[in-house]
């Protein structure tokens, strides 16, 4: 599984990254978590509000900091 966190490095993006990692640990899922900070790459996804969460190249959320519980639901 490949997970990407899109965001220009604001505090919200860091919280989203931490929540994602927490969800992965709790579900015992192995996945690559990559942070995408390059604005051109972010725009390629068509995302206009960051942070956004991408799982296997599919945008599952944008403009919101999901809690680790919400991320768990998306990962299942």
């Amino acid at each position, binding site marked *: 599984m490949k997970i990407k966190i899109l965001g*220009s490095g*604001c505090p919200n993006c860091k919280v989203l990254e931490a929540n994602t990692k927490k969800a992965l640990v709790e579900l015992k899922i192995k996945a690559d978590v990559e942070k995408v900070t390059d604005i051109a790459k972010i725009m390629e*996804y068509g995302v*206009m*509000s*960051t942070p956004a969460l991408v799982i296997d190249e599919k*945008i599952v959320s944008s*403009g919101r900091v999901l809690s680790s519980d919400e991320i768990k639901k998306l990962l299942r």
Partner: protein
Amino acid sequence: MDLFYPIQMFVNWLVYSIFNLQQGSILGGAINFFVYDSIKIFILLAVIIFGVSYIRTYLAPERVKKLLSKRFEILGNMTASTIGIFTPFCSCSAVPLFIGFVESGVPLGVTFSYLIAAPLINEVAAALLWGLFGWKIALLYIASGWIISVIAGFILGKMHLEKYVEDYVYKIKVKNNMKLDKKTQKQRAKDAYQEVKSIIKKVFPYVLIGIAIGAFIHGYAPENLLTNIAGKGNWFAVPIAVLIGVPLYSNAAGVIPIVSSLIEKGLPLGTALAFMMAVVALSLPEMIILRKVLKPRLLAIYIAIVTLGIIFTGYLFNWIL
């Protein structure tokens, strides 16, 4: 009838009967003011944030982009400013938002109307103004913020500044693979509730500290403290207030209660309103982020027009009120 009368009754009972403070004493007055204002403001915050967040679930940036790309000139500025009332402005989203708008053909002036209105008209500020000054002042704040963003965006659009947008912005290709998920009413309400929780959690220490300082000023500062130095007679008061307000962004929630008690001590309302608008509209972190997409010249013009608009509003309200 005053909607908040029952709360005042309850607070009177709490402060004078339960805490056993002397009615009419300075300490009793200050504590009464603090408790009453805190309760009232948190009720207003919850209600207003819920309402605004609910409407916002219909205004995802991807949809706003489509709405605005078909509109030009003054009508576009008006639509953009209106949508800006309901959308917050997280400075971390400024760059993707800006690029997304420009790329899909939203005129630059219309984009600016949105970029100005979104932070300038902010629901936390509106709730605080309503709680501390009454709904008329809150409405006045929203209306003048709207007019500033319409006019400033219109002027910026007329100046044809497209060449001062960073060149790479025009080269980025945006894929439109973002699907807007349909939401049920229940989901929207749930989202709005989440917003209320997260915003109140974020602002409540500032609001409480602000109200506490305000209550202190209310109780202890001399009556005409500011009449002489910042009264209507002093023409420099408005621009100076705006210049002080610009770097204070993150404390908007705490600043308004303090300002409200300074009004009692002789600060004119227009000056106070200009100060608060400067606090919410222009901030250093936002400028640093916008610099990524705007060349220095355009950034400077943008700051100058918004600042002048706010100063003008300050003078206007000092004059009519």
